Structures are given as structure tokens and as C-alpha cells.
């Protein structure tokens, strides 16, 4: 499988990554090479095989629903690039 430059641009948009023109070309080649390798799993007949998502099967892990100490708001906000009134602040998403 070989990716086109526009497919790489589409993936980068989905992943929210700004790429330079040089990066776009480099990733086109590198991702195509990796995809060509991983496609060997297509050789296997997997029709009757169930998927495995985790190493050790565990189902319905539950715990008591009790109030526990949580982070102090000041600690939670400490690393944010911008805060206002005890909240994370960023640009407007919807214009008025």
C-alpha cells in the first residue's frame, strides 16, 4: 500500500498535526514503507479468529462507589498554559 500526499495530509488533519511540505513528503515515504510491511498480516486466514484486546482477560472490574480525595483545583490548573476564574482558558470555539 502506497499513500498519496493528499492521504497523508488527510491523516495529519485527522490527527491535528501541522506538517511542513518536507515532512509531508518524508512521511508519505516512511508510512508507505511501514504499511507495506504490516500488510503481510493479510496473508493469514483470520475469518474464524476472535480479536484479543488485552493481555490478560478481565471482565467487569468494579470498585466501591465512594468519595475519595481528589486533586486540589489549584494543583489541577498549575500546569495549564492559560487559566481564568479557576478554569482552563483557550480561544473561542464558537463565534458570537
Amino acid at each position, binding site marked *: 500500500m502506497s499513500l498519496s500526499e493528499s492521504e497523508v495530509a488527510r491523516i495529519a488533519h485527522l490527527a491535528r498535526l501541522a506538517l511542513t511540505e518536507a515532512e509531508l513528503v518524508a512521511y508519505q515515504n516512511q508510512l508507505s514503507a511501514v504499511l507495506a510491511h504490516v500488510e503481510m498480516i493479510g496473508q*493469514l486466514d483470520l475469518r474464524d479468529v476472535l480479536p484479543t484486546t488485552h493481555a490478560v482477560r478481565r471482565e467487569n472490574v468494579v470498585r466501591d462507589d465512594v468519595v475519595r480525595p481528589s486533586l486540589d483545583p489549584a494543583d489541577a490548573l498549575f500546569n495549564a498554559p492559560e487559566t481564568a476564574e479557576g478554569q482552563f482558558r483557550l480561544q473561542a470555539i464558537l463565534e458570537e
Partner: protein
Amino acid sequence: MDLSALTLTELRRALRAGETTSVAVTQAMLDRIVAVDNDVRSYLTVTDELALEQAAAADARLARGEETPVLGVPVALKDIICTAGVETTAGSKILEGYTPPYDAFVTRRLAAAGAVLLGKTNTDEFAMGSSTENSAYFPTRNPWDLDRVPGGSSGGSAAAVAGRMAYAALGTDTGGSVRQPASFCNLVGLRPTYGRVSRWGVIAFASSLDQISPFGRTVADCAALLQVVAGHDPRDSTSLPEPVPDYEAALTGDIAGLRIGVPAEYFGEGLQPAVREAVGNAIDELVALGASVEAISLPHTPYALPAYYLIAPAEASANLARYDGVRFGPRVVGADVIDTLKQTRALFGPEVKRRIMLGTYALSAGYYDAYYGQALKVRTLIQRDFAAAFARVDVIATPTSPTTAFRLGERADDPLSMYLADIYTLPVNLSAGCGLSLPCGFDEAGLPIGLQLIGDTLAEATVLNAAYAYEQATAWHRHLAPI
């Protein structure tokens, strides 16, 4: 007494006997970091003041006669494990300056047991890599040969222990990131069964594969560190509730009757001749010690790498969506919110971007079934391979890595060749088992070679004891890096 040359186990004895103090060995480690880490560059952050405070507190506990497997022992943590008040970057510019408001589970466990934190070690960015060259800060060098990589992604932790700048260290192993650097640096590295150690407070790369893993200079050192960090944690729902055995007590050195499987698939093309020979000799030694050997097959081994490079990037692309410049890390302001996200996330390094895009593609509409869905089915086949093998044998013996440490820059421009460095380790991450690497020889250039011993689910004690028996019969682990 050269304090830095002691193993963790020897140091613990010396501390209990009052022959030295935690403050003295901590200062010796800090002095050695100053003396040699400009060349090795294993640490991103050295927590010298904190270390000396913790050491003084440990000395007070030692004076009261307290004992833990690591009381007063200076250790290092991979910079992907959160430490309250100490910068934690995951080797990335996108977390530059990030100061976690809480300690990871393992950080708490180590502190409670009285270990001394020397600092945070270098890593490939978000643990993505096999050489530590993908760190956004600087590459780490191998204490055995400064022109070569220490392996990765936990290369900083490996280089710190091999360079005698820590008595033991924690890394994380998602596809071999502890076993492969252990192999490159003449250390013991144990990747426990998934869920044996809580991942709470560890910066996530691939959540179904990540596992915190100890490095030591000996098997007993590794067992001591695992003893402290293993166990159930209700905050990690994937953490296993099974009781933790006494790992050090399991080190009897008696392996009479142990059945060892040797899979042909791990001795194929691309295996360096010196590695093949050393691993073959190690298996002979295990037989001389009373084990039996049989040829086994893990037929889906060739499909592990492709499955891994779909599953791990897919999980990474989801995990790394959180780096959006809102809650932590720098923000690069763009024309609108979407542009701000894109410009901020451009701070990721090339390998991280590559894997995010690979994962995004594997999960995208129209490709999900063909890539991610199929890879999960291959994971089932790999688990079946191991289950069939462990019905016949107790431990599987293989090389840890196809080659010894490569030179800096040698594979940096060819992602696929870098990925092949983990071809023998990553099947364990896809499986339900555990794996350990330990020293088993040197190549013609004097570079360390690792023997990998793979065990079934929660068979850490079996694997550790097999490794211990071999270690007691050989002297490879006594060779110290020439720095």
C-alpha cells in the same frame, strides 16, 4: 570500598551492617553522576536535594532496625513515571516544564519502602523507540561504548545502572523497551506480566501493552525492585489482584527438571553470529544445570511485528490526543482553535508524529477492519502460540535482540530497521506472559549480549529463578562497563 561497584543486594547488606550509610552512597552516586553523566547523559533531571533528604530519612529508619528490599538504596525512574513536584517530560517538548501534581503508584511504593530517588532518566519520546535517540532533549550513550546507543526506549535508566549512577531503575516495556536496553548494557531487565505492576501515574503510550519493569545489575537486584512495586492497585482497573509471591525467596538456583523450549523462529535471518553462539552456549549451560530442552514452534512470530505496529500506534494515537495545549505543556497559538491544536502538536518529534499518523490511519473509517481489527486477531494467534508452548515447557529461551548495541545514527533514518530491533521482545507484550533479559556473553567488539527467558502468565518467580541459576554459574554480570 568502591561504593558504586556494589550491587543493590550487596549495598543492602552493607547498609544493614552499618558499614556505610544511605547518605554516603547517595552522595557517591551524585558525585559519579557529576563525573560521568556529561558523557553518558542518562539523566534528564537529577533530584540531588530530594535524594539527600530521602537518604537521611532512610538512615533513620535503618538505625531503628527497619528492613525493606530497597531501604536506603538510590534508584532512578524513567521520565515517563510521574513524580509530584519533579518535572516529568516523557522525553518530549510537548511536556517541557510539566510538573505532576501527584506521584505514580510505583513512585509512592518506592518512597514508602525508603528508596532514594536520584532523578529522572532519559527516554525516547513517549517511549517510542529502541535507541533513546528519539528523546527530544539529547541522545543517551551506552556506557560500554559511547559511540553506541544504550537501546531504548528506557535507555536512560539502563545507562544509569550500567554506568553505576544508580543501583537499580524502573523503565517501561511496551515492545521490549526494558529487555532490549538491558541486553545492550549487560543488565537484568524483567518485563512482568501485564497488570502485575500498576500503571497509575505512568504517561500512557499503548495502554494494552505498557508495563513498568525493573532493571538491576543482578537477578536478585531485579527481584528486589519488583517485590516493592508489584501488586494490586484499585486505581488501575487492569492491575491484577493475584497475591505477589516472595520473589527473592524463589531464587533457589535449583532448576532440576525445568523444561526449556527453544523456538526455531527466534534464530532465523538477521541474527548476529556472536549472539547466536552466546545464546546457544547459555542454553547448554542451563541443561548442564539440570534443565531439559526441547525444540518448540511459535509459528505466528513473523506476524508479531506487523500486528504490534498497528496495535501500538493505534492506542498511541488515542492516548496522545490529550496533548492539546489546554491542560498542560506549552501552547502555540494559531489562527483558530483547530490551528492552535495543530501548531501545538507540531511540537511532537518525528517518530511520535509518525506513530500517531500510522495509528490514526489504522483506526480511520474504511481501514479499521483491515488494519486494527485484523491485528487484534493476530494477537489471538500469538497468544495461542504461547499457550500451546507453555503446555509443554516452563520457560522459553531466545536471544533478546538480534544484534548487540548499534552506533548512534546508524538506524535513525530508517524507521523499519529500528523497529526490527524489537523483533524478539515484542511478541511477549502481545502475549499474556512475562520476559526477562540477562547477560550471557560479549561479541567480538566487547559489547554485551542478552539471553531472553520468557514465562507464562505470572510466572515471574520461575523466570527469575531460571535466570538466577544461570547467573550463579556464570560471571558475565560481574563485568562492569569501562566508564
